[in-house]
């Protein structure tokens, strides 16, 4: 790390309601995991947004490279039969 006085960066994931999955909401700085959860509570759940918080250090996330966009994602763009749009999902099934 270039400057050891800077707190590490954490990515924050919040679950909005039971049954939904955690969604990435943003990032913040904190000294350790517990501190990051507390900060996430104060920064990202002030308006009743969440029932659960996950944090992970940004450096621990492996990401795809933007330059690989073509080979990674374009082959899927003409395969519409993979989309489940030909089915009617009953309301009782809830969020998919």
């Amino acid at each position, binding site marked *: 790390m270039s400057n050891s006085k800077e*707190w590490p960066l954490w990515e924050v994931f919040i679950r909005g309601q039971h049954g939904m999955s955690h969604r990435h909401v943003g990032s*913040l*700085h*904190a*000294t350790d995991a*517990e*501190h990051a959860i*507390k*900060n996430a*509570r*104060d*920064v990202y759940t*002030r308006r009743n947004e969440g029932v659960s918080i996950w944090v992970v250090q940004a450096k621990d996330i492996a990401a795809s490279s933007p330059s690989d966009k073509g080979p990674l994602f374009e082959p899927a763009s003409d395969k519409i039969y993979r989309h489940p749009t030909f089915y009617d999902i009953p309301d009782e099934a809830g969020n998919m």
Partner: protein
Amino acid sequence: MKPLFEFLLRQGDNALVLGHRTSEWCGTAPALEEDIALANTALDLIGQTQLWLGYAAEVEGAGRSADDLAYLRDVYDFRNILMLEVPNEDFGRTVMRQFLFDAFQVPWLTALCESADEHIAAIAAKSLKEALYHLERSAETVVALGDGTDDSNKRMQSALDVLWPYTGEHFLQDDVDNTMFKAKIAPLPVSLKPEWESTVRSTLNDANLKITDSTFAHSGGRTGFRHTEHLGHMLATMQVLQRSYPGATW
């Protein structure tokens, strides 16, 4: 003054004065995350103030509102303990004061949940959830900074040395306390001292901080006998709008 009114002012003014002091950090805290956390704490305390002073105004029955009590009383009418009105100084002292207060508030509000006065029990139950989070956060920060670098340890030690003589005021006892106790509205504050002390001592021990031997206690705030010179300056800022434009609303 009715003892119940006096008692409610003590609760409300503690929350109001600490809430205002904490809000002074808005936009200037050492890290963005701490800034918003302090603002949240300040808002929690101001929210509690509305409940306490709202009930106080009702009990007084003189047609005043919570806003009137907050913005139109002068220094000698305030009933907060002195520790809460001393200036923030630095982040270390702000966090230390919050911790010393939270360590009292948690057992105090827990006890008030059993109050014979249902309105007080309801306010306490709502405030307790906030106080529990405040204590968790402030205790953790006291340990992180006390047990941090030489500089942070030194600042936390000097914050503790300044604030310690103010902590005794929590546990003083007068006719108001006796009346509340007899009516089963509130416990005697001194009965909470063992729990407060055990929280404080174990946290400060983890934080590598030493408590001074002195048992001297500043007092006068909760009875209104005497405040520090700082409260007047704070109220001048806090009340300037209502003082300059009486009745202003938006």
